[in-house]
């Protein structure tokens, strides 16, 4: 994929839809496009995290460790971002992310991500919305489990 195609692909992702061309180029150029095989781990729960992943093609499964072993929590697909909690909140990885299919992701390092949020309020708002949704999901799930 060349940069022009990459920029097109990034533009279609809601999170980045508000970015102008040169910012999309910066994001694409400073981030790594990585191919994962099914079963490869993108990150492992409890480890230190330095990057977030934007899924360009394929699906990932999200697992959390429980007493009875890893539990599949959810699945994310193309256009979604995973792994941002660790770099935004500076905490260890909260879940394990595994490639469910052959996967192409954009690996964004912490400093590039922060640079993007600082320079672009729209992205920051989008990230906040995403995080809030996840917290909401988590609370609902916890309440449901408690019933």
């Amino acid at each position: 994929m060349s940069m022009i195609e990459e920029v097109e692909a990034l533009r279609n992702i809601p999170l980045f839809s508000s970015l102008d061309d040169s910012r999309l180029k910066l994001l694409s150029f400073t981030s790594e496009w990585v191919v994962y095989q099914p079963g490869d781990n993108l990150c492992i729960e409890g480890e230190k995290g330095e990057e977030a992943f934007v899924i360009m093609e394929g699906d990932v499964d999200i697992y959390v460790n429980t007493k009875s072993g890893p539990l599949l929590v959810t699945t994310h697909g193309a256009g979604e971002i995973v792994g941002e909690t660790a770099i935004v909140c500076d905490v260890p990885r909260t879940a394990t992310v595994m490639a469910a299919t052959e996967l192409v992701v954009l690996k964004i390092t912490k400093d590039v991500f922060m640079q993007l949020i600082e320079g672009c309020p729209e992205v920051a708002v989008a990230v906040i919305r995403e995080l809030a949704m996840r917290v909401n999901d988590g609370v609902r799930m916890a309440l449901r489990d408690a019933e």
Partner: protein
Amino acid sequence: METSIFKYILRYSRKEQVLILIATVLSMPLVYYSLEIPKLIINQAIGGDGIPASILGFDVTQISYLLILCCAFLALTMINGGVKYHLNVYRGVLSERMLRRLRYDLYSRVLRFPIPHFKRISQSEVVPIITAETEPLGGFISDAFALPAFQGGLLVTYLAFIFNQDVFLGIAATAMYPLQMYVIPKLQKKVNELSRKRVLTVRSLASRIGEAFAGNTEIRSLDTSKYERAEITGRLGSLFEIRKEIYKRKYFIKFLNNFLNQITPFFFYLVGGYFVIKGQLSLGALIAVLAAYKDLAGPWKELLKYYQMKEDIRVKYAQIISQFHPNGILDAPLLDSDASGRQTLQGALSSNGLSYAEDNGVKHVDGISFEIPVTRHVAIVGPTGGGKEDLARLMARLIDPTRGQLKLNGVNVAGLSVAQVSRYISYAGPGAYLFTGSVLDNIFYGLKNHPRPADTAIDDANAERVRLESRRTGNSAFDVDACWIDYKTAGVEDSGELEAKAIELLSVVDLDRDIYELGLRSKLALNPNAALEDRLLQARHRLSDELSRGDLNHLVELYDYSRYNTNAPVAENLLFGVPRDSATTVQDLINHPYVQSTLAKDGLLDELILAGRNAAETMVDIFSDLPPGHEFFNRFSFISSDDLPHYKLMLGRIEVDGIESISDEERQQLLSVALMLVPAQHRLGIVDDAIQQRLVEARHRLAEGMPAELTALITLFNSDVYSGESSVQDNILFGKLAYGQARAEIRIGELIRSVIDQLGIYRDIMRLGLSYDVGIGGAAIPVDQRQKIALARALLKETDLLIVNDAISVLDTDTELKIIAGVQQLRRNRGLIWVLAQDHPAAGFEQVLTLEKGKISKRSNGSD
């Protein structure tokens, strides 16, 4: 050591001093005659007065007499010169021998210093004492006895002559001597004092400069260089004042001497004249006495000069020696003797009321009693400074208890020699000092206790001479080049087993991975090894097979002469090689006229410049919004933030006036941007398939007619040739890791390891890693690896007891626990004492002692 330099000289060079004295006395007639003959030549041969009629029965004329005397003069001059030459060489050699002995003695004493003493002395003070301060002593040693004897002899002779002529004249000639002999030492004493002060000031200056070296980071980061310079200025100032005072006094002594010497003729004229007038002395006798007195001045002056030098040297020697007599210096026999016929240690390490206090009286270890069976695994824990560190050092006999005794199987450790202790006990401390040399040299360092007997006797005239010379100066009788590594100390039979054991230990101290990686990164250019290179080429081919077999070709893009490598920069693709060494840059190679003309031929050069322009435009587009100096420039951009405005202008000019409007220099700048492009990584779409094809064609054209001077600068990629200038890993890989493949590096690393194992060259790779140079004091490798090497060094020795004193403190907890478990496993049934951090779990130890404020606060059985 001898308290005065004269005792030292007499003890070690009595015979030589006598010889010099005899030779000096015997040469005196020669000197006398070489002065006498010219007088004969002028008065008799030339003046024609008193020519003997015949010599040895031959008739002589005036001409032949002149000829004889001149020849005799020539012969005497030569003999005289020869004698002087040999005497000087002999004296020089003697001086140098004594200096060698003195330095060796001083250095040996340093090795016997009690360990705590090293905290109190400054290395930069002691080093110049041994190297520089001893230097003037050498020059004095050969003159120490001969000079005063010779000059004194002359003086006495002249004086005898004068007294023989007339007692009163004799008294007149020596009238000033008592005064001089009284006053001058008084003045000299003050000079001695000053020169003593000067030596001390110079030493503290050296020590302060040494501190600036050690504290360089602090001085820079805290901006205290002005303060430091003021500090040095103060010391240089006081040095100057002392020197000025010394000069004043020294030259005053000289002035006084000269004056008093001139007073004497005054007495001669007065007293002698009186006697001549009275008729009690002949005029001739007075003239003779005056002549004798003139001769007297020479030796007298020399003697006074000697006296001043002697005083200076005496002071210097005393000051040197004073630094080498610390309290508690180790007895020489304890250091020198060898441990022979070692038996396995039995019983227990025990103590009764063991105490250790430093000079300030604070007790670090306070009346501790214990009995530890020598095969037990014991952990010593407690707060830092609670005494555990010093207890471990006491147990290793590195420091001596102030009270109480430490006993090994009932024997007081204080009476054991260093060799015996080190055969029983190995010790690894927190310092982890490494010596200059390779990793392997350092791991083997503890085996070098004594040269192997078979290797000490090399029958070679030169070696014999060197040995003899070191023996006669009391130096070490051992040859440093002999084979020092004792396999038995490590419990093995030969070098192969030793290497195997060392490599095995690397995994115990968790260093195997690091050394393996050092091995993979090493270059064979300096130590070519054809057999290994051959195997590594096999590894290269095997890896390529494995890649296709395992369907892993997408992880690596191998170099292929007929294909473009999208994971390599344009420049590497074009040259199909890399610069041979760091002195040449890619730019230098591309700028070579041959490359430029070849590229220009079919317009590829212009295309590349255009590609450079496109890339530069993208860079300007992407990075313009970032503030200047943002770290992304360094990490991602081809163009630095400083150059960005310039490129902006250039690109604007091209936009308006076309590409022809830019200068040659700017063309080169754009070209260099294009040369850095890596299509797979940068994904700019600039180096497209068409250009890639053209670049491969250009590669072939370049290769065909490449001039030798250019080939010499490039390491070409050739699948059948090993490149010594590239790392072992690059040689095996022979390609580039593919961009954007998850875990490619790890998976390829594993694959390389499996290929290395298949070919059985793991040990060769480890050997390469082990030959890595650790730098001065181990500075070239990180501190955690240094600690691991030091631990491996202690583990390599087969001893009954291993004491590990906080020796792997910089490692993370997981690694530390892993190493402790490994060492415990390795030392099953053999003693192990480990000093650990305060709240360490101390798992796997049979006994845990807790030390607080110098006392054992808790004894518990281990947590097995």
